[in-house]
């Protein structure tokens, strides 16, 4: 009995520690106080400000949000395409070559962000590529693609090795076989690779910071960083964080429910 209680308490404590910061932000998004931690009574004013863009520097916050989403979507799409094709290529290599490619693919994933960021920065400078949108997207594609490769690979090994040949045998050109057979079969792996890339691009700070150049391009993370250095966080960030968290939570629940449903159907 006691043992059970301790086990349960441990889990709850762990969850509490994990979710306390989020909860803290969410609670304090419903008060007007400029300083985080001061409760000045319940209010939805910050939400109103956010949606009606009635706050100081709201234009830059909204454009940072827009940049973040745009970069994440484009980078995730490019990485998904590149990573899927690369996965097919690596999968069809034999023995030692395949091992080498897998190793090369996993190095960028364990490489610290700061090194990726600085080296990309130096590369862009060396190649005289003016930094801005394009370089940030290129940088994000660089660190997302290996994850797509990793999430597509297991689908490939589950696949019947004759499937691609079967498509060609029935008259499909290699491109048609890719589009009509390979992509639909790899779709679950591609979707999870896309999601992974999207979220990683969304919350990247270090690499973005080094590759965004000096034209004043801000994503949410760099905006918050500069904002915090200017003297305190803009209070409207609290409702924004809360909303982002809620949206992701809802998305996760939907994905999980759908997965559970399809699994039930299979059984």
């Amino acid at each position, binding site marked *: 009995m006691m043992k059970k209680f301790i086990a349960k308490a441990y889990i709850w404590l762990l969850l509490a520690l994990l979710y306390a910061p989020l909860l803290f932000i969410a609670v304090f998004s419903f008060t007007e106080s400029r300083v985080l931690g001061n409760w000045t009574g319940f209010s939805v004013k910050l939400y109103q400000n956010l949606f009606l863009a009635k706050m100081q520097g709201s234009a830059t916050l909204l454009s940072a949000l827009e940049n973040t989403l745009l970069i994440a979507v484009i980078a995730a799409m490019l990485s998904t395409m590149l990573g899927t094709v690369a996965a097919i290529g690596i999968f069809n290599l034999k023995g030692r070559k395949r091992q080498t490619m897998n190793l090369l693919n996993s190095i960028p994933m364990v490489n610290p962000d700061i090194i990726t960021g600085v080296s990309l920065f130096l590369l862009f400078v060396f190649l005289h590529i003016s930094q801005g949108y394009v370089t940030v997207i290129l940088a994000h594609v660089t660190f997302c693609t290996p994850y797509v490769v990793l999430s597509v690979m297991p689908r490939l090994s589950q696949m019947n090795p004759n*499937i691609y*040949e079967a*498509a*060609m*045998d*029935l008259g499909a*050109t290699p491109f048609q076989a890719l589009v009509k057979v390979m992509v*639909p*079969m790899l779709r679950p792996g591609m979707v999870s690779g896309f999601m992974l890339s999207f979220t990683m691009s969304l919350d990247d700070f270090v690499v973005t910071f080094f590759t965004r150049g000096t034209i004043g391009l801000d994503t949410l993370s760099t905006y918050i960083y500069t904002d915090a250095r200017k003297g305190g966080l803009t209070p409207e960030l609290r409702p924004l964080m809360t909303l982002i968290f809620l949206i992701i939570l809802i998305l996760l629940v939907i994905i999980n429910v759908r997965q559970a449903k399809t699994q039930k159907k*299979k059984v």
Partner: protein
Amino acid sequence: MENYIIDIQHLSKSFGDKKVLRDINIKVRKGEFVTLLGPSGCGKTTILRLIAGFLAPNEGTILLDGKDIGNLPPYQRPLNTVFQRYALFPHLDVYDNIAFGLKLKNVPQKDIDAKVRKVLRLVNMEDYEERDVDSLSGGQQQRVAIARALVNKPKVLLLDEPLAALDLKMRKDMQIELKEMHEKLGITFVYVTHDQEEALTLSDTIVVLNEGKIQQVGTPTDIYNEPVNSFVADFIGDSNILDGTMLCDRKVKFIDEEFDCVDEGFGENTPVEVVVRPEDVNIKKDKSKAQFFGTVTSCTFKGVYYQLFINTDKGYELMVQDYHKFEVGDRVGMQITPENIQVMHKERTCNSFKAVVVDSNHLEMLGGVFECCKTDIEPGTKVRAEVDFDKIDLMDHQDEGSAAGQVHSIIYKGNHYHLTILTDKRKHIFVNTNDVWDKRDLVGIRIEPKDIKIVEVNED
């Protein structure tokens, strides 16, 4: 001049430095059911993949209707394949799987509907159009795979062990259905299998393959009744394979007895191999009509017949099939009809190796150094060494011999085993032994110095 739909000429294929096909020549008539038969790794699937276009040959040409298709990609060849593990598209239902090829050819929707329905009727799968392919049984999936290939009206249907994944009962049923389909459609079938019974049941022509080479081409009855070598005899059906001597035309000696036979032209006192099928050894109730005698050592009921092992009085073991039951220890008289004795040329009578003289009493061959009798041939000279089959000793451990190898195949010859050993340098050695070995056993190879004969000195 005959009209061949497929004409394969001098086809060779290597993977890396491993030759998997050597000089393959196959001609297939229109509407024929041809089976490529052989043990796993003999190259039969490689031939099929070369015809389908998934592999490119190193040498040789493949003619389809007289046109060279060697350079066409698979999607431009008017052939379709049924794969071993079906390879259906799991994201499509039965209808869309079958319609896949037609849709790519932009066939009008109305025609697609009609064709799919027709082919589903052919494979007895009506009313399955909407079903998910994952929800079908193995047999049903195979029917869909066959339908998906046939709906495109291929000139030749290639089948790669299509029934291997099915259970025995289902396999038998599908064999009959395939045979019926073939007769009904008149499409040429090229069928790959390792199952000799399946090959005998289905085919018009069987091509027996081993180690990348064609062993024999013929009708099922030809292959069964007149195997050209001990490999074919051993691979197809049960058989007694025995060493013998052709005394003169129509007279052969084996198991230390003389028999009349129907073969001629082997010369006199020529060493040969003899094949006698177990059902062709007749046990005679009337002992005066028997040619030789033996004692039953085992008798097993096999459903329709009993399978007996009989030790002849002269010390050979024969496998015999008979409809009557015998007790172990029974003494029986036996007779073999001349037509049922199949005499074959001996492919080899002794081992012959390339060797290099190391010093006055050592030779290097088979990837090792062997002691031999004193020789005055200059060290470094290339020679040929001969060793009799029964003069090679096999050791339990590879390092006990002068060279190492692995048991590759075993044929029982009535009173001894004839083994093929593959050395580490991929050379074949043939050994006669009384010891029991298993396939893939690792062995050391030892030869007594006096048994190595240096027969020929190559000057160059």
